[in-house]
C-alpha cells in the first residue's frame, strides 16, 4: 500500500490552515473541517505566512480568503509560489469574486470555495480531494528521482525521453551510458561513503552541464548513468570534463569512467533499445584504469544482430544436434610415460550457415540470456551417453568432466537431474566429473556450497576450474568441497617468459598439495611448459601439447592407445 493511502486509511491527522479576517467565517469553516482535520487559524496574510513557515512539513492545505488587511490573499499566494518548499502546499481560495479566480489560478491555487459557503459536505469533499491530489503528486515527484543523486530513476527517465522525442521528432539525439569502473571494489576498499561521493559528484556535473548538452539524465543499475543528449560533436570532451571534475572534487586520480555512445539514434527503435546499444558499446570496453569511450558502430551492430540470431536458433540447434561435444584428453605425467587419465567435454557449434561458431561467442551470450542451462544439460546428456558407448565398446572409460555453470547450480533439480542421468545412462558417478569455475564459489556462496556438497556426497568428483582468477582466500579454500584444482590457462600461457606467472603456478600447486588434491594444468602447449609444470609437481596435463579437443570418434584412438588400465 502506498504511503498516502496508508495515511488516509489510518485517518492520520492532517493540518489545515484557515486564513480569514472575519472571526465568524473562521469559526464556521473551522467547525466544518475540524471534524476531520486539525485546524490552525490566521486572521491575515502575514500571520498566515508565519504559521505556514512554522508548519511547512506538516501542513496539508491552506484555505485562504482574498480580501484581508496587512497582506491580502493574492500577495500571500505570490510569496508561496516563489518558494520551492512552500509551493508544494495546496491552497484553496475562499472567494465570492469570479474575477479573483483567474488570478488565483495563475498564482497557484488549486481550487475555490465560494462565499457564502457551500454545504459542509461539498466543502469537505473539495478539501479532501485537494489534499489527495497534492499528496499523490508529491509522492510521484519523490519517486521520480534517485534519492542519492537527484537524477531520474530509469523508468521516469525513459518516459521523459519519450516525451521529449514526441515534441522534437526531427532533432538528432545521442544515447550515452557512463559507468564508474570497479565501483564495487572502490566501495569495498574506501567505504560506501566514498563510492556515494563519486556518484553524487558525477550527477552534480551532469546537472550543471544538462542545459549545455540538452540532456536528460538518470542513474541506473547502481553504477551507470544514462544521458540522452542532443547530437554532440565531441563525446570525448564530455567524458574528459566528467573525469577532470571527479578528480578535482574527490582528490583521487584513480577513479576512471567508461562511456558507451550510440550517436544519432534511430528513432524507430524504442528508447530502451537505444540505451541497450549504448550499453553494448560500453560493454565492449575493458574495465581499465583510464577513462575510455566506445561508440556503437556497424561492427557492434553486426555482432549484436549475429548474437540475436544465435539466441533465436538455440532450440533448433539442440533439436538438430548442431552442438557437438568434443573431448580433450588429460594426461597423467607423473610416471615415465604420460598416461591418459581423463577428458574434458567441450561444446562446439557446427552451425549450418556460419560453420564452427566459437564457444567464446555463444557461451557468454547464452549465459547472459539464461539459456546456458539448456545447453549444459544437453552436453551432460551427450557426454554421458558417449561415455556409456565407450564403456560398452572398450570395457572401460576414463572419467570425463563436464562444465557446470554457476547458474546451473541454482536450479532446484540439479542434483536429481545429474543422479538420474548417471542412473539412466548405466554409469556411476566416478565416470563423470563436474567442473565448477572458481569465481562461482566466491559470490555469496553458501547455497552453492551446500548443493556442491550434496553432489559430492552422491559420489561426483568436483574440479575447481580456472583456479587463480577468483579471489578465494586460503581459509575459504580449506572449507570448499573440491577434489581437483584446475589451474587457469592464463598463467600457463605466459609462464615461460613471465616469472610472476611461474610463481603463481608454483603457489597453486603447493596449495593443492596442502589441500591434498591433485592439480590439472590446462592450456599446455609446449615442451618447456610441460617441463616446468612437472618440475613444480603438477601431475595432470591438458592442452594442445597432447591434443586439441577432438570429436568423439577421434578420441577413441586415445582410449585404444591408452595403456593405463
Amino acid at each position, binding site marked *: 500500500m502506498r504511503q498516502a493511502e496508508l495515511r488516509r486509511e489510518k485517518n492520520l491527522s492532517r493540518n489545515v490552515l484557515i486564513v480569514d479576517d472575519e472571526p465568524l467565517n473562521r469559526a*464556521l469553516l473551522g467547525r466544518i473541517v475540524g471534524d476531520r482535520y486539525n485546524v490552525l487559524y490566521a486572521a491575515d496574510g502575514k500571520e498566515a505566512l508565519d504559521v505556514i513557515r512554522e508548519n511547512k512539513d506538516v501542513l496539508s492545505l491552506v484555505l485562504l480568503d482574498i480580501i484581508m488587511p496587512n497582506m491580502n490573499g493574492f500577495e500571500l499566494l505570490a510569496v508561496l509560489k516563489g518558494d520551492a518548499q512552500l509551493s508544494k502546499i495546496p491552497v484553496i481560495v475562499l472567494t465570492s469574486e469570479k474575477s479573483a479566480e483567474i488570478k488565483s489560478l495563475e498564482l497557484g491555487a488549486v481550487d475555490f470555495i465560494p462565499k457564502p459557503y457551500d454545504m459542509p459536505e461539498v466543502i469537505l469533499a473539495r478539501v479532501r480531494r485537494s489534499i489527495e491530489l497534492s499528496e499523490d503528486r508529491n509522492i510521484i515527484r519523490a519517486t521520480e528521482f534517485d534519492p542519492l543523486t537527484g537524477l531520474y530513476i530509469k523508468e521516469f527517465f525513459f518516459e521523459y525521453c519519450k516525451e521529449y522525442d514526441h515534441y522534437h521528432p526531427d532533432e538528432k539525439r545521442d544515447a550515452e551510458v557512463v559507468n564508474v569502473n570497479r565501483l564495487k571494489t572502490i566501495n569495498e576498499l574506501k567505504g560506501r561513503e566514498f563510492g556515494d561521493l563519486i556518484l553524487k559528484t558525477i550527477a552534480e556535473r551532469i546537472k550543471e552541464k544538462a542545459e549545455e548538452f540538452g540532456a536528460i539524465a538518470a542513474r541506473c543499475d547502481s553504477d551507470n548513468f544514462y544521458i540522452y543528449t542532443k547530437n554532440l560533436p565531441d563525446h570525448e570532451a564530455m567524458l574528459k570534463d566528467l573525469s577532470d571534475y571527479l578528480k578535482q572534487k574527490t582528490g583521487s586520480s584513480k577513479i576512471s569512467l567508461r562511456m558507451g555512445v550510440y550517436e544519432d539514434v534511430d528513432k524507430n527503435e524504442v528508447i530502451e533499445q537505444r540505451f541497450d546499444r549504448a550499453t553494448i558499446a560500453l560493454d565492449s570496453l575493458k574495465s581499465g584504469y583510464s577513462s575510455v569511450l566506445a561508440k556503437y558502430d556497424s561492427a557492434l551492430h553486426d555482432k549484436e544482430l549475429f548474437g540475436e540470431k544465435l539466441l533465436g536458433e538455440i532450440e533448433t540447434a539442440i533439436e538438430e544436434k548442431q552442438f557437438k561435444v568434443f573431448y580433450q584428453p588429460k594426461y597423467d605425467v607423473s610416471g615415465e610415460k604420460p598416461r591418459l587419465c581423463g577428458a574434458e567435454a567441450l561444446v562446439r557449434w557446427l552451425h549450418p550457415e556460419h560453420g564452427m561458431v566459437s564457444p567464446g561467442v555463444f557461451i557468454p551470450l547464452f549465459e547472459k540470456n539464461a539459456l546456458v542451462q539448456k545447453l549444459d544439460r544437453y552436453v551432460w546428456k551427450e557426454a554421458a551417453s558417449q561415455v556409456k558407448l565407450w564403456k560398452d565398446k572398450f570395457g572401460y572409460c576414463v572419467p570425463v568432466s563436464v562444465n557446470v555453470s554457476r547458474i546451473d547450480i541454482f536450479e532446484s533439480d540439479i542434483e536429481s537431474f545429474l543422479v538420474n542421468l548417471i542412473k539412466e545412462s548405466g554409469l556411476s558417478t566416478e565416470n563423470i566429473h563436474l567442473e565448477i569455475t572458481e569465481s562461482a564459489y566466491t559470490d555469496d556462496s553458501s547455497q552453492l556450497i551446500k548443493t556442491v556438497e550434496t553432489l559430492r556426497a552422491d559420489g561426483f568428483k568436483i574440479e575447481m576450474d580456472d583456479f587463480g582468477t577468483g579471489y578465494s582466500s586460503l581459509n575459504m579454500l580449506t572449507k570448499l568441497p573440491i577434489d581437483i584444482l584446475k589451474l587457469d590457462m592464463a598463467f600457463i600461457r605466459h609462464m615461460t617468459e613471465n616469472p610472476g606467472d611461474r610463481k603463481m603456478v608454483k603457489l597453486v600447486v603447493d596449495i593443492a598439495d596442502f589441500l591434498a588434491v591433485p592439480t590439472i594444468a590446462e592450456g599446455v602447449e609446449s615442451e618447456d611448459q610441460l617441463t616446468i609444470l612437472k618440475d613444480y609437481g603438477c601431475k595432470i596435463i591438458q592442452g594442445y601439447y597432447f591434443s586439441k579437443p577432438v570429436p568423439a570418434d577421434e578420441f577413441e584412438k586415445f582410449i585404444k592407445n591408452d595403456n593405463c588400465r
Partner: protein
Amino acid sequence: MITVDKLRDFGANVEEGKQRCLNDESFYITLVKMVLGDKQIPELVAAVNSGDLAKGFEIAHALKGMYGNVSLTPIYKPLCEITELLRAKTDVDYTALLAEITQKRKELEELDK
C-alpha cells in the same frame, strides 16, 4: 434571547444557515450572536457618507460574506446590492440602501432582547 423561531420570523433562511453549521442549532445561534457583536455597519455608513467608496466596498464585501454565511437574508440582500454598486464605484444615492441595512440590523438586535 434570540431563537431560531424569532430568526425565521425575521426572514432569515434558518434551515440553510443550520445546514451550513452541520445542523447544530446552538452553534448556529452562536454565529448569529457573533454577527450581533460586529460593529462594522456604522463604519460602512460613515465610509460611504464621507465618499470613501473603496473603503466602503471593503467593508460591504466583508459584511456580505459574514451575513451570507448565517443566511440572514434581510440584511444579506441589500449588502449584496451595495457591494456591487461600490465595487463599480457607482455614483448613486446610497441613502436608501444604507437605511435599509441599518433598519434591518436594528430589528435583528431587537430579537435578542
